[in-house]
């Protein structure tokens, strides 16, 4: 048993993968708490997809080099976060429609750009589904710094984000800078998506934001506890997912997401049974 656990650790790429999966799990679960509570899952999904053109441009400009991709992705994510935020505020179009338009349009642009390169399918797959085993030390630093920054900001604005999410009218009567805070939250989600890009890719990103936080939501009714639980579930899923990926040769990003989903399913199932038993008594 111990051998089974230790064996993958002799490979440096696995160790780096574990480190990345745990860090990404913590950041995306904590930020994801607000995504779940505010009903922004569709926004998160769209934002993740809409960074594809940014990644593609960086990829083309850098001639396939991977260093600049992070910064291009960050730029694209922040621009689309602000774009979606602005459009949905300033036109008659409802927010989810605005998100849909930007989501599909930018995603198509990204695929179009990447398709001009010959090794298109392989590269596209990495962007879509992640490549956590290809993470390098440099990437780990970027994840640590930007992920840490996102966590710090969530902590610093904890009470403001809580009020804004629970009762926006109260936030207004307390004269909080509600719009700035909302944009800040969008940017934090954008940063989270970018640091998670290599781990799960844009297509599965929303699962990292939503699934652990939703599982934690079922288990507790206190916000700080929900954040900690979600972070624990997510990092645990990252580790187990990588083992599953190693031993069964499953794509790492999908293995992590499948473990998250399985945990959610188990918790949800147990709760449904408990509720039914209680109702009967």
């Amino acid at each position, binding site marked *: 048993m111990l051998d089974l656990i230790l064996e993958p650790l002799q490979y440096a790429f696995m160790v780096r993968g574990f480190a990345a999966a745990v860090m990404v799990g913590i950041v995306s679960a904590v930020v994801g708490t607000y995504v779940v509570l505010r009903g922004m899952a569709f926004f998160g999904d769209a934002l993740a997809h809409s960074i594809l053109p940014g990644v593609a441009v960086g990829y083309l400009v850098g001639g396939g080099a991977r260093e600049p991709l992070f910064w291009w992705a960050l730029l694209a994510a922040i621009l689309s976060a602000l774009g979606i935020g602005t459009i949905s505020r300033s036109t008659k179009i409802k927010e989810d429609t605005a998100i849909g338009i930007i989501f599909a349009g930018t995603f198509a642009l990204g695929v179009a750009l990447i398709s001009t390169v010959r090794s298109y399918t392989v590269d596209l797959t990495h962007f879509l589904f992640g490549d956590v085993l290809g993470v390098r030390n440099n990437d780990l630093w970027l994840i640590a710094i930007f992920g840490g920054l996102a966590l710090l900001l969530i902590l610093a604005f904890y009470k403001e984000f809580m009020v804004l999410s629970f009762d926006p*009218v109260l936030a207004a*009567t307390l004269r909080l800078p509600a*719009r700035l805070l909302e944009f800040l939250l969008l940017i934090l989600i954008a940063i989270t998506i970018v640091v998670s890009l290599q781990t799960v890719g844009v297509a599965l990103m929303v699962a990292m934001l939503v699934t652990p936080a939703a599982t934690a939501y079922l288990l507790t009714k206190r916000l700080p506890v*929900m954040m900690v639980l979600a972070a624990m579930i997510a990092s645990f899923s990252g580790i187990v997912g990588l083992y599953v990926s190693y031993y069964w040769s499953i794509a790492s990003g999908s293995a992590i997401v499948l473990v998250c989903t399985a945990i959610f399913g188990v918790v949800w199932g147990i709760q449904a049974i408990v509720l039914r038993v209680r109702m009967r008594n």
Partner: protein
Amino acid sequence: MSILKEIKKTTMHLGRQQRHSHDVDAPILSAEKLFMRYENGPALADISFSLREGERLAIVGPNGAGKSTLLKIIAGVQDQTSGQIQIFGHAPDGHICIAYVPQRNQVDWNFPVTVADVAMMGRIGKLGLFRNPKSHDWDIVHHALDVVKLENFAKRQIDQLSGGQQQRMFIARALAQEAELMLMDEPMTGLDITAQEDIFNILDELREQDVTILISLHDLKMASERFDRVMLLNKRMLAIGPAEASLSPENLLKAYGGHLQLVSTDKGILALGDTCCEGEH
């Protein structure tokens, strides 16, 4: 979006600067020639009135009369089309002494916070950015919960409260905010008589502390019995004054048209209720 306004709010929140000062000579609330126009027509027209400190005013009128809109404009949460609102001689958006008690269905009761957490939200404007509640703030919160008789529920999840308790929790939040003007949107809707009495008992206590209270209501009988003055609203202000004068049969017919049943008895004319709540819940 008015970036300057947001930045001003941020610096106010950051530095805990003194908000608008209170002119002692000015009335706690004065509205002058207030107009509100939406795309599909006028919502409020030519509203002028003022309130004395410690006064209790009921706003009654049919659905769509603009009661909620008026309360939100007074709270400084929504901007009027024209006209002026002054709180102690200054525009409402610089005050944090105005509490807005939302309709109960405006809030997600599954949000993971406790009763005490919600009451503490009222203090966030006073706390300012990057400052956590001190024991002094918790004292105020627990005292507020004591006043509304929810001290035993402080650690409960908000989804465990009855309708009356939910409403009392919001009053506690307004007390924690140290509000001098309390705006309540349909607080009695859906509550049984005991729960309504509990709230009136609290309001009586608040009157001794000179808290001024503005409540929108559907119950004409309650408005006429429990308030200093009654405003009859249907986009225009049809009357304001003691109930006997403002709720005269002519005024009521003007406000409600055919929706109101008036019955003549030997003691005078009885109004048998308004159009309350069709499709509202």
